[in-house]
């Protein structure tokens, strides 16, 4: 059977085209549905909101792609950042999308964590990407948690996005581990994703001297980025 395997090499460009197909196809169907004169005003409002939110998701990806393509030539200012505040900003930004999908997103953990050294925009993009992924995998009615954890001995702060959904199978987990540090994969490697989002997140983390990773749980997964803790307190 031709299951679409091994048909073409998956470059970042091909992966990007694939990743953008789904939201564009959805927006088209939403627009066609909006053309139905028999739908109620409430339904029309709902479809309009879904169209706007879907376009925003697609635009985030295009913006990330542009940013990733310019990583080598750009200078990114690294500064001490309060991860709790940044997580709350991300949660505020994503709240409408999660609500529209019948899910919630919240920050869990200490309100006064160690500061970390990062570029605010790149870290925000990583967390938005992980949260978007968590939205896709979480079960309706569940919450996605942004969590902050400090590893004082190693001087690292981990910011993770925890979803509550079906456990990842061992096969999917192995595939995922490969994707955490590699270029986008053939689209059959993980059925619904080329791994482009993880690839971009990995590049953003590299640019901040950090790394991304994932933890598998019985009821979901956590995707995280680890960055150096700020040492400014030690100078006091």
């Amino acid at each position, binding site marked *: *059977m031709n299951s*679409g395997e091994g048909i073409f090499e998956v470059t970042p460009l091909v992966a990007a085209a694939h990743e953008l197909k*789904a939201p564009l196809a*959805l927006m088209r169907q*939403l627009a066609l549905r909006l053309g139905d004169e028999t739908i109620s005003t409430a339904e029309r409002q709902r479809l309009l909101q879904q169209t706007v939110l879907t376009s925003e998701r697609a635009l985030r990806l295009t913006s990330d792609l542009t940013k990733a393509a310019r990583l080598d030539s750009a200078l990114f200012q690294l500064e001490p950042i309060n991860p709790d505040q940044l997580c709350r900003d991300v949660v505020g930004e994503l709240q409408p999308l999660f609500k529209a999908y019948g899910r919630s997103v919240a920050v869990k953990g200490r309100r006064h964590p160690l500061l970390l050294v990062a570029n605010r925009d790149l870290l925000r993009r990583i967390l938005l990407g992980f949260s978007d992924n968590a939205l896709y995998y979480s079960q309706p009615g569940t919450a996605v948690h942004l969590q902050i954890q400090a590893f004082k001995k190693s001087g690292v702060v981990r910011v993770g996005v925890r979803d509550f959904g*079906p456990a990842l199978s061992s096969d*999917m987990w192995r595939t995922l581990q490969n994707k955490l540090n590699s270029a986008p994969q053939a689209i059959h490697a993980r059925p619904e994703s080329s791994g482009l989002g993880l690839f971009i997140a990995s590049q953003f983390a590299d640019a901040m001297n950090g790394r991304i990773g994932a933890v598998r749980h019985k009821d979901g997964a956590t995707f995280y980025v680890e960055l150096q803790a700020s040492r400014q307190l030690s100078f006091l």
Partner: protein
Amino acid sequence: MTRVLLVEDDTWLAEVEMSIISDAGYEVLIAPHAPAAIELVDSFEPEVIVLDVLLAGSTAFALLNELQSYSDTGLIPVVLCTNIADQFDAKKLKEYGVMRVVDKTTMYPEDLIAAIAGVL
């Protein structure tokens, strides 16, 4: 009323497709992934399955193989409704019960209904 099982993991697209199919007079249930689809095949006994390919978890092909493993479920006609229709040879998919392939990126509501009607 003819029963249609819609296997689609995108919640909003599933809702739109469900509206299109039910407006055309079919009874529709949504399965967001392959394991849910298998359960509904037993309980809902669909006469047609509209199947997305790139599902969360197992792909459509795992589900097609499962369906083909049993003489009764192997007879349920399948309409593949996918963003990657250009990657498939519709003729080769027939032995897996796939009777029509609909391209989600270009389809109009009437195309989906025509595909369902065409396999009954």
